[in-house]
């Protein structure tokens, strides 16, 4: 079974989602996402290197996490009780850098330095260089275990902090994801929420053609997690699921996984659902075409049509 069902069907646990997200300013979040998509493309175009597909796929999730769900403060990056975020799919670094710039962890002047010698903006996130990156990632499959360790440590510290970890669907072909998937429920972690960017593409093609992942949510359920399924580009659903995940974990003594149906390359017409844009920088012509897609009128019209 693939997870290409329509969004309404995806919210299998719809009853678990609180209806009230009326206070969320969806337009503002959407506009921020649009702008950060441009920043992502600027960085990758300037570097002529990087991963646009995965970054555009997950940026809406990061906007909601850092803007609405997480307790954090760029002025106090060492605040012991800040919520933690682990980008296990580390190749989404441009998206992470974009949101960290927006929140003031990274200066905008660093934007053109992605992937350049002596830059803080390494190809994959490195804790040594960037406040807001608590652990280095990039070698796939390792971040969820690290997030489990953070959650264990924060619980020992009696900290109210919550740990969020974003994994990729392709990344879930790594065995260690499933070691961690066993580990988190074994430790009855209630301060851990994982999100899976389910865009169904990996470098060489469709995940279901290469090593089928099938119903990832069902797999996590079988491993002892609560599972929510959402449209990973619907801000209300993302935020509602984030809040619900925390509460649900408390009620059940289980960690919660949010499977987020995403579109690789989301927002740039010719990058959407194209595996070829996993790790390729646009040339000048493609960059201009991408920017045109991200102008407000085109961008919002396309979003409207998609819905």
């Amino acid at each position, binding site marked *: 079974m693939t997870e290409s069902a329509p969004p309404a069907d995806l919210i299998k646990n719809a009853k678990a989602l609180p209806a009230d997200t009326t206070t969320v300013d969806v337009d503002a979040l959407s506009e921020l996402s649009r702008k950060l998509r441009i920043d992502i493309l600027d960085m990758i175009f300037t570097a002529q290197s990087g991963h646009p597909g995965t970054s555009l796929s997950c940026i809406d999730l990061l906007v909601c996490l850092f803007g609405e769900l997480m307790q954090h403060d760029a002025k106090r990056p060492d605040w*012991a009780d800040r919520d*933690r975020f*682990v980008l296990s799919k580390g190749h989404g670094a441009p998206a992470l850098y974009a949101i960290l710039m927006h929140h003031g962890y990274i200066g905008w002047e660093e934007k053109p330095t992605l992937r350049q010698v002596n830059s803080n903006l390494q190809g994959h996130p*490195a*804790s*040594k260089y960037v406040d807001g990156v*608590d*652990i*280095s*990632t*990039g*070698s796939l*499959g*390792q*971040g969820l*275990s*690290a*997030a*489990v*360790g*953070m*959650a*264990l*440590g*924060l619980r*020992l*510290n009696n*900290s109210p902090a919550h740990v969020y970890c974003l994994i990729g669907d392709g990344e879930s072909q790594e*065995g*260690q994801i499933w*070691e*961690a998937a*066993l*580990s988190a429920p*074994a*430790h009855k972690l209630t301060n851990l929420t994982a999100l899976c960017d389910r865009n169904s593409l990996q470098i060489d093609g469709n995940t279901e053609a290469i090593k089928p992942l099938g119903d990832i949510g069902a797999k996590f359920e079988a491993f002892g997690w609560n599972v929510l399924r959402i449209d990973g580009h619907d801000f209300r659903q993302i935020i509602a699921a984030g809040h619900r995940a925390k509460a649900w974990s408390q009620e059940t003594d289980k960690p919660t996984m949010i499977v987020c149906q995403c579109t690789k390359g989301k927002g740039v017409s010719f990058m959407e659902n194209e595996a070829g844009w996993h790790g390729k920088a646009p040339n000048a012509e493609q960059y201009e075409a991408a920017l045109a897609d991200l102008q407000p009128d085109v961008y919002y019209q396309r979003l409207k049509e998609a819905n």
Partner: protein
Amino acid sequence: MGLLSPAIDLEAPKKEALRNRFGDTLAELGATETDLVVLDADLACSTQTKRFADKFPDRFFNQGISEADMMCTAAGLAAVGKKPYVSTFALFAAGRAWDQVRNTICYSNLNVKIVPTHSGISLGEDGASHQSIEDLALMRTIPNMTVIVPADAVETDRIIRWSLQVPGPMYIRLVRTNHAVIHPDDFELEPYKNQVLRQGSDLTICATGEMTYHALLAAKHLSERDGIEAEVINCTFIKPFDTDTLIKSAQKTGRVLTVESHQFIGGLGGAVCEELCAHHPVPVKRLGTQDRFGQSGKPDDLFKEYGLDPDSIYAEAKAFVASGR
């Protein structure tokens, strides 16, 4: 610190398992160091982390048979201020989980202490599949990593106490066996210093871990039987390597024999050759598993088979000196 205590009887030494002392020391430190946490991968009864687990069950995490997951979990614990000690067999710590140690622990320079208890061929009967003979080489090449090999239970205790105060990743290699104690009870560790335990002028023997005792016994016999005086350096610090002590000794003796329960490539022998080549080239002979896998057997029988028992070291050293090189 230096020179072997006269109270140590090399022919009939007291014996103690390094891993027992490791477990006891952790359990003692746990009482005052509340950030100390311990992780194991279903080997707590073998590694003796059980001694900590019994006293501090809330701070002990049995990660099951998932070494890769365990290393990254330890990294996460360190990232929020805990002081994790991680144990399993050396092969699984350094081999199976190498990428995790490199990318998640060392690249982030996290305060994780990896203390495998079953390294080298003295793991014994389980055979080559479980005998780690490449771990020093694997760990030594990772930036930010410190690599340490205590020679006995007393030194193990001092290293563990010291390591708790020093941030950053460390690989502290222990062995399974009930092993000769060569340090007195009042031994004081001098960090980053490899001790000269016996002075001599005919050759330098650099030994590490359980091989240090074998080297001391060989040196005693060389002196008693042949009048050959070997200087023995206990190479506790493999990385950063104590170059000064090595060079001073090599300047005096003019030849260096290395002994390790490890491949003769990339471990102690490799480190010694790198330093000597750069600073004071002299002839070197390296003893270790000579590009062979280990095999099943009793530890003492395996030492004989692989030329790492005191008699074999004695014979190699004698031939080396006689060769005139």
